[in-house]
């Protein structure tokens, strides 16, 4: 697997030289491979938002480097906008950024900023982005302000996907949606990831969501990167996560406690189906289950 992004001793301090000086991110080094789906967790104020905003050059690090495809993104500060097309960023409640007369124009805002003039190219980008996010064709002609909440969210995400970024960062894409909306959006993101084969970073408070989609997890705490490992490995450290005020999915916790009570179940169970597998295996052996 080839590396796409590397962080070297990355750090950021807010308000340097003022009484409000605050270290938001401290000495983060890591390497991300092409095609990985990474979950980013940490409680509010842990520095995860600042960290992800440094990856596409929205925040300039006060120390350390962000190396994208082998190049330091701040090598040529004048070309920082190009980095934003390679590293797409969807903020929390992205529907608040919609502004055009119709959805089509809004989605094409990004591609146009990239300097694409060919209308055919723009058209194909808009339509494929709409498809990826499950936005029906007829909605493209509507005003973005006439869409439902869930549709607005998807239109805004399509606006970033239309730039066809190599890395897509999503900050709490499912916040405020109902369970069904959450479910649908997550599976669309997963499908997009499978087809487009690009790298995705998903920032979320929902451990169940993370467990469902991520291959690896970054855990931020007090501006430090405290864990960066496979999802199973991170969630098998349930007690350590609890210590820094994070939780694990309910099912992971149930299995963890059973293991601690001496039952023969493995660490880091991620889904109900998995848990069911293991428990039914034990019960079948004892003949309590058919």
């Amino acid at each position, binding site marked *: 697997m080839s590396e796409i992004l590397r962080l070297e001793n990355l750090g950021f301090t807010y308000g340097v030289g003022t009484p409000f000086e605050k270290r938001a991110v401290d000495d983060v080094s890591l390497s991300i491979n092409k095609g990985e789906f990474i979950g980013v967790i940490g*409680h*509010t104020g842990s520095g995860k938002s600042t960290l992800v905003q440094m990856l596409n050059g929205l925040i300039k690090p006060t120390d350390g480097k962000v190396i994208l495809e082998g190049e330091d993104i701040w090598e040529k500060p004048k070309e920082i906008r190009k980095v934003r097309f390679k590293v797409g960023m969807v903020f929390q409640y992205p529907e608040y950024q919609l502004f055009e007369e119709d959805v089509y124009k809004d989605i094409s805002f990004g591609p146009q900023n990239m300097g694409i003039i060919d209308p055919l190219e723009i058209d194909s980008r808009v339509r494929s982005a709409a498809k990826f996010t499950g936005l029906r064709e007829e909605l493209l002609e509507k005003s973005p302000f*006439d869409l*439902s*909440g*869930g549709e607005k969210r998807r239109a805004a995400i399509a606006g970033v996907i239309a730039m066809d970024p190599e890395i897509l960062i999503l900050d709490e894409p499912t*916040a*405020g*949606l*109902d*369970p*069904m*909306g959450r*479910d649908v959006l997550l599976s669309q993101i997963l499908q997009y990831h499978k087809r487009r084969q690009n790298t995705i970073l998903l920032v979320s*408070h929902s451990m*169940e969501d993370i467990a469902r989609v991520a291959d690896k997890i970054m855990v931020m705490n007090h501006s430090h990167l405290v864990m960066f490992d496979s999802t199973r490995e991170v969630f098998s450290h349930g007690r350590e996560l609890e210590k820094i*005020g994070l*939780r694990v*999915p*309910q*099912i992971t*916790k*149930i299995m963890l*406690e*059973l293991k601690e*009570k001496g*039952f023969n179940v493995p660490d880091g169970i991620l889904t*109900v189906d998995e*848990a*069911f597998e293991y*428990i*039914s295996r*034990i*019960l079948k052996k004892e003949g*309590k*289950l*058919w």
Partner: protein
Amino acid sequence: MKFISLQNVVFSYSDPEDSQIIHNAVDGVSLEIEKGEFIALLGHNGCGKSTIAKHLNAMLLPDSGKVYVDGDDTSDISKTYDIREKVGLVLQNPDNQLVASIVEEDVAFGPENLGVEPSEIRKRVDFALKAVDMYDYKDNAPYKLSGGQKQRIAIAGILAMLPQCIVLDEPTAMLDPNGREEVMSTLLKLNKENKITIVLITHYMEEAVLADRVVVMDSGKILTQGTPRDVFSQVELLKKHRLDVPQATELAYKLNGCGLKFDKMPLNAEECVKMLEEVLE
């Protein structure tokens, strides 16, 4: 009569694109709420639960059917403000319901509108801020607080009107897990200690399981209701309507399907661990 009683409530709105088409946001809902109850109202966006919430304090009046609050018909305009004093409504976005630039002045807004004596307002504000555990922040500016803290100030703002019931329309949807927990423990405390009736509209199962009664709505109608255990045991029904079930319940349900017999369904991790322990021993 019960404290709040909805009788066959219908509320409709016309389609934004074609005014000929009429949708029923609430389609014949009857519901009784007793004093001191903690009710969770569950359902998808657009199932009518927010519309119900606005009926409980006369912000909306039913097209047909009746809503009674403490014996008063909400469509009686002379009672509107009495009803809003008794039943307070807290909304989703904490930023958009704080009206003053200082916490304690915001909390005072309700009683000021009711024409309460200044010294009495002071007492109520102090009481309300202490009840939500935000007294130390009374001189702060709301925009500097966290989401959970802001939402607790919003609750205090309602509490200062000394309501008998607080209705909350997805108060935790925009909060992080810590904020959600702060709001939930505040609500439980108000319900237990101050005997305030709580109607909580939410998407989160882990919040709904803490209620005395869960009411599930779908397309303007009540789908099912009962104790959290009764409701969440109907895993099939909930799944069919694409609603979440706690993972603990789901696991037990799956095991039940293969020959195990749990006499009651677990609702949280602790209960589930205990039950599994028993069968695995």
